[in-house]
């Protein structure tokens, strides 16, 4: 398994598109900072109607709305479909399948690598936001967050931030099984890309909780950590995601040999 993962890592990082996507996600927080803080002078953020001042401790979690939209609806569908569909579509995946490994292991290896790569992108975003917060935002020793009564110090604030990013990661990873299913079903990169976006937008029209999870992900994360979110919605979301992971693994195992 480790060899599969290392080989996937090698292939993913040899692609120019991965480097460009990495660069975009790293530059985006800088762009947001330039426009929102430098140009427009925004010094607060609002959660469910409650206004909070920006400072070095809370800055990393307060700049995620635009990032969430860009990543969930553009970057991740592009990144995942480039890795899954384009190899199948071009026929290059045939060479990988020739190796003496179980097919499902190849897909699981791919998933692990994609999730780890995206995790490192998200970590990069966190570190850049943390750096911006410490360099340019007012310094405080304690800060408050949505629906948390006590003031958090640097350590507790970092824990809060990491929990927040973990929730964002969990929501974003849900794009992966959708792309996997579409890649198997349609093979074409363009279809898996637009298909995943269409499914997410379609789902948002149909279900209000899904609309909140996908579109207002940061607000959902504040509410979950603050204890005001109806956790059943998130549990259903995670269960459905796991179910789609399972179905795509089953479909991949069954069909990949015949479609490449």
């Amino acid at each position: 398994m480790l060899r599969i993962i290392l080989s996937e890592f090698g292939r993913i990082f040899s692609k120019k598109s991965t480097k460009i996507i990495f660069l975009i996600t790293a530059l985006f927080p800088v762009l947001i900072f330039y426009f929102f803080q430098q140009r427009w002078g925004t010094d607060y953020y609002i959660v469910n109607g409650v206004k909070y001042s920006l400072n070095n401790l809370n800055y990393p979690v307060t700049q995620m709305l635009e990032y969430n939209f860009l990543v969930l609806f553009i970057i991740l569908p592009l990144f995942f479909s480039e890795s899954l569909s384009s190899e199948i579509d071009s026929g290059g995946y045939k060479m990988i399948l020739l190796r003496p490994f179980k097919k499902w292991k190849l897909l699981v290896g791919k998933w692990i690598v994609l999730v780890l790569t995206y995790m490192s992108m998200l970590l990069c975003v966190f570190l850049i936001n943390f750096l911006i917060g410490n360099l340019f935002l007012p310094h405080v020793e304690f800060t408050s967050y949505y629906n948390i009564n006590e003031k958090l110090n640097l350590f507790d604030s970092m824990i809060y931030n990491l929990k927040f990013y973990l929730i964002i990661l969990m929501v974003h990873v849900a794009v992966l099984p959708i792309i996997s299913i579409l890649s198997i079903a349609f093979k074409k990169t363009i279809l898996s890309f637009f298909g995943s976006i269409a499914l997410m937008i379609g789902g948002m029209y149909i279900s209000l909780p899904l609309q909140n999870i996908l579109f207002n992900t940061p607000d959902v994360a504040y509410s979950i950590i603050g204890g005001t979110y109806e956790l059943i919605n998130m549990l259903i979301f995670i269960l459905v995601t796991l179910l789609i992971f399972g179905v795509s693994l089953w479909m991949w195992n069954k069909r990949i040999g015949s479609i490449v």
Partner: protein
Amino acid sequence: MFRSLFIYEFEKFWFKKINIVCLIAILIVNLLSLKFALQSNKTADMTDIVFNSSLNFHITSLQEMLLTAFNAIVITFCILSFHEEYRKGYLRMTFMRGISIRKLYIAKSLVMSLNILLTIIIHLIISLLIALIVLPKTSTSPLYFKEGLYGISDVVFFSIKYYFLAYFSLLTFGSIIEFLSIKSRSIAGVLGLSLGFVFLNFIYISYVSFLFKNYPVSDPLVLKYNSLSFVFVQAKGVAYFASGITDVFLYSLIFMYLIFKSLSYLAFTNKNYLE
């Protein structure tokens, strides 16, 4: 010769299943718009612009989906028609028959324009039908950027202008994607560049709004600068044009269309491709 080339391109377009999926998607897009319309109608008054009726649903649904679903359809059409054939080398087979590359580009462009027109017309027919069946029937309706309620003749005139500029904005966007499709080496590259272009447009709009923050939003100078962003044209410019406030959006689209179409033509007819 050109006629057969045109028919050949047309047949090739319809042979691809993805193009048919795109046209079927229009029905789904309309149903999603309808769901949103029914939700808005619960809280909106009949004189509100967000109130959807049999008279204005074809306008509100296009307004909602022009920037998203229709642009996605145009990107798909362009990638399949230009990128796949040009970059994967399928066109080399065509040129074995001694066909003029210039004529082929013109035929492809005509087929593309015709199919985008067809997409818009299908949307119009489906939305009119859905509105007639499901939404409340009214004899007057409010229109974007116009005060008061308007009768059927005004709505028809508004719709013709609205659909015309919406169609032209899609053609312009198509010419940009054509250029990117020819120049980019991978589908992911075309998708990334296309969406990057859309994203840059949003940044440009934000920059213009910051630059002219002391001006009213419908000031001619602000509209002139915003007209250079096709995203703004699709989001608001089409309605400004249809309501008769300004024609600047039409001129800017013609300007962008000519530039990108010329660039695409030069890139497509580059002789190096045949070597």
